[in-house]
């Protein structure tokens, strides 16, 4: 009780926003390139949206890659057909992601525990094979190529790739700030109740299925936004975006960062992207290391990097109190 009170009072929004801004500003320096940093921000959004499911709603979804892939296809299709809509195409992607989440959720959300996991996995495969079987929309194995970037009005001063980065950075900050509000809202608190004890939450009068479904739709919409941004950065929507591997990558980032930490998700995305970039040059079988890291994280640091950070902060706060 006292502990939660302390967290609520001590954990104001200021440092969170500062950390987001600092992360967005420093990411290009840490990764050494604007395009890699752009990918980090995109996957940070996706991993944070995955955390909403995994850490707050308590649902492990393998469909995150489908939302990501659908987001990139929809932004591509929209911009190729109507280049005039500009950034409005991103909104179309978000809506598409939410609709897909609604459809997958309608089949899976009633199912408990592992059945939910299994159905999201199967639906992710459904989305993948559907993309493969509909080359007219998705470009099949080649992916959707030559997606025009909407004009941002910053190109003259920043250049093309930097203004894409600025767009990603703004949406990264907005998305994580939004997620922070969501998990701290009454809705987010009721998700906590559902996760901790579904039966009790139900008995207390919460509409458990609807809470989960809304969380799934928010998560799906934001993940689609990430996919759309990624497609703009690449100027294409490759088939691999909707692959199961994308779901797994997003999950690993979320776990590494800590399932109950939004800022942790950003660090998870950073760590995984850097690992992918550096290790893959050293050793083509680097994913084996990812496997070991994943196992070690789940077994020994279930709260990931974000958990370590929180531990550090609370131990420091305790030390400060003692000193005072």
């Amino acid at each position, binding site marked *: 009780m006292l502990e939660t009170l302390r967290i609520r009072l001590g954990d104001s929004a200021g440092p969170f926003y500062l950390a987001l801004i600092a992360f967005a500003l420093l990411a290009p320096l840490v990764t050494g390139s604007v395009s890699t940093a752009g990918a980090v921000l995109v996957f940070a959004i996706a991993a944070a949206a995955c955390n909403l499911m995994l850490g707050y709603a308590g649902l492990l979804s393998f469909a995150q890659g489908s939302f990501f892939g659908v987001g990139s296809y929809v932004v591509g299709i929209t911009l190729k057909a109507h280049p005039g809509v500009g950034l409005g195409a991103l909104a179309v992607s978000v809506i598409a992601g939410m609709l897909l989440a609604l459809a997958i959720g309608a*089949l899976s959300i009633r199912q408990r*525990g*592992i059945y939910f996991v299994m159905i999201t996995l199967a639906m992710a495969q*459904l989305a993948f094979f559907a993309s*493969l079987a509909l080359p007219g929309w998705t470009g099949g194995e080649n992916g959707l190529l030559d997606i025009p970037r909407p004009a941002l009005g910053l190109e003259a001063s920043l250049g093309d790739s930097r203004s894409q980065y600025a767009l990603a950075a703004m949406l990264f900050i907005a998305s994580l700030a939004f997620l922070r509000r969501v998990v701290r809202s009454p809705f987010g608190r009721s998700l906590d109740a559902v996760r901790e004890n579904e039966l009790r939450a139900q008995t207390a009068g919460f509409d458990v299925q609807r809470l989960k479904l809304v969380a799934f739709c928010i998560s799906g919409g934001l993940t689609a936004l990430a996919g759309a941004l990624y497609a703009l950065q690449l100027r294409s929507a490759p088939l691999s975006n909707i692959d199961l591997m994308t779901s797994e990558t997003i999950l690993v980032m979320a776990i590494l960062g800590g399932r109950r930490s939004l800022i942790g998700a950003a660090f998870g995305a950073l760590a995984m992207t850097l690992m992918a970039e550096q290790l893959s040059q050293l050793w083509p079988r680097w*994913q*084996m290391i990812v*496997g070991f890291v994943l*196992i070690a994280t*789940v077994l020994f640091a279930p709260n990931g990097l974000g958990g370590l950070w929180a531990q550090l902060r609370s131990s420091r706060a305790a030390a400060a109190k003692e000193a005072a």
Partner: protein
Amino acid sequence: MNLYVFQALNGLGVGMIYFLLSVGLSIIFGLLGFVNFAHGALFLVGAYAAMFTAEQTGSFALGLAASFAVVALVGVVAERLVLRRTYKMPHEAQILVTVGLTFILTETIVLFFGPQPRQVSMPDMLNGVLMLGPYPIPKYRIFIFVTCAVIGAALWLLFERTLFGARVRAGNESAEMLSLLGVKVTRVYALTFALGTGLAGLAGGLAAPLRGADPSMGMEAIVIAFVVVVLGGIGSFSGPLIGGLIIGVTQSMMTAIWPEGARLTIFLVMAAILLVMPKGLFGRA
């Protein structure tokens, strides 16, 4: 029309492999409450173990034996070292740990055998076709069907009619009570784990001559196993059998009707069944 009957009969062979694959997953979940995402990767290891052994020794039978033995060994080692620690954890943690194990196993296979798909030959004795009325059925499919049916029957006898089976079922009810009665529960767990994973390996070994061996087959297998289990329910024998046959026959028939969409159809069938019967074909608590 004849083509469809032919494809349906062919699909029974694939369906039985899916049964073998899913029943292992089901057995492990039934006793241990453990969700083994690495089951597909074990299927992959089984295929390569069978291929390698058959190439080295020239014996297909030894290859199949190796696919069971090697994978059972891998399963037991993984259970001892890592998976045992997760029995008390939520299912999500078990899935994530076995996703990690999947990465490790798949990359190990690529490390030793390379990423290219490999052909796996079948013994001459099983090459060719057998006429079943007007339908020429490949002998190998009949061999798969019979082998899997025999194994399925043996499994049923093992779990329903032997002391070991009684212990497994008792452990399912109350592991604590079983250990108080003087049974070494960890040993029952390890044996069950070996059996369940070994079956995934054997399924891989049997599937290899049909589809070749390649590193992506593990992911394919785990998805199929999950679909079968979602349809048929987990923890029983009849569920994986009927689920496996439905998926196998559907896939095989659709290959004739709409080749690009054959795999898509599996998932559409699953979605359709779930829409009508949200609890799967046999319902579940």
